[in-house]
């Protein structure tokens, strides 16, 4: 019985950690959307900023990956 409750906690925790993936999706969408808005305003300057775009996306995405990692650890490692 105790093990069941602990396992239930693991599953609930993993599900809660998956919220972080959605938050990261919002962040990545924000970065990409703002880049597109700026790029359409001044297309000639857009090509030089793609590296910055990818760095921004990478930083925003890393936190989503962290939450995914927490979910994986709860499911398989704890």
């Amino acid at each position, binding site marked *: 019985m105790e093990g069941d409750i602990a396992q239930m906690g693991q599953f609930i925790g993993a599900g809660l950690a998956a919220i972080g993936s959605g938050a990261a999706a919002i962040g990545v969408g924000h970065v990409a959307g703002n880049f597109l808005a700026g790029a359409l305003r001044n297309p000639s300057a857009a090509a030089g900023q793609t590296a910055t775009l990818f760095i921004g996306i990478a930083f925003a995405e890393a936190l989503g990956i962290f939450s995914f*990692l927490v979910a994986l650890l709860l499911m398989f490692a704890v």
Partner: protein
Amino acid sequence: MGKIFFYAVLALVVVSGLIFAPEHAGLAIHPMDQFVVQPLFGDGHIAWYTPTNATLWMGLAILATVALMVMGSSRRSIVPGRAQSVAELAYGFVYKMVEDVAGKDAVKFFPYIMTLFMFIVMANVLGLLPTSFATTSHIAVTAVLALLVFVTVTVVGFVKNGAAFLGLFWVSSAPLPLRPILALIEVISYFVRPVSHSIRLAGNIMAGHAVLKVFAGFAAIAVVSPLSVVAITAMYGLEVLVAFIQAYVFTILTCVYLKDALHPSH
């Protein structure tokens, strides 16, 4: 000569994918089973010298890189062939990235960054082949790459700037009372770099492969099977993109860290 080498590597990849496939490469497997490191011959315990599937696929990634670059640069015709165009594209791409992001004086680190990029991109793409093993999905592999970058950047920063490298943590443009707090945050973020640098690559590759296997599990149910096959195809296309983008992100972050080391002022 170069062509023979290229086909030899291709044959080696196909053969090792067929021979050293995971034992339970059938239907209805656990999504995380594909990441199990197992010895190539027999099933004893794994010592540091045991050749495992991780060893095999890392070696194949290196061989594939060598095959592309050797074959691409062996004939050097004015009108490039296929291999030469790809090799030149890869070289020019990474060279431009180093020059643009890290600055002209970082070009002497170009061989290191090029090696990193080619290894990661080849390991990612080879890991996408069915029955192969994705080496970059293991944090052990990416952590070594990221730690090497971290140590290199720190050593280069101190050798190049001496104690002035610590100016990286002292934000001189901020108001004075804020600076100690910012310094603490900067120090923490500096030491978290190798963690996020390695987990980003490993997590992306691992998540993508796990998702592919989860959808593959749905393919066994007759009602959703067509949908799941379509979903796998779409996800696979996305994973090819991710394999490239994550290698790009890893190298470009290396360049950013290198720029911090060479020009530590804020």
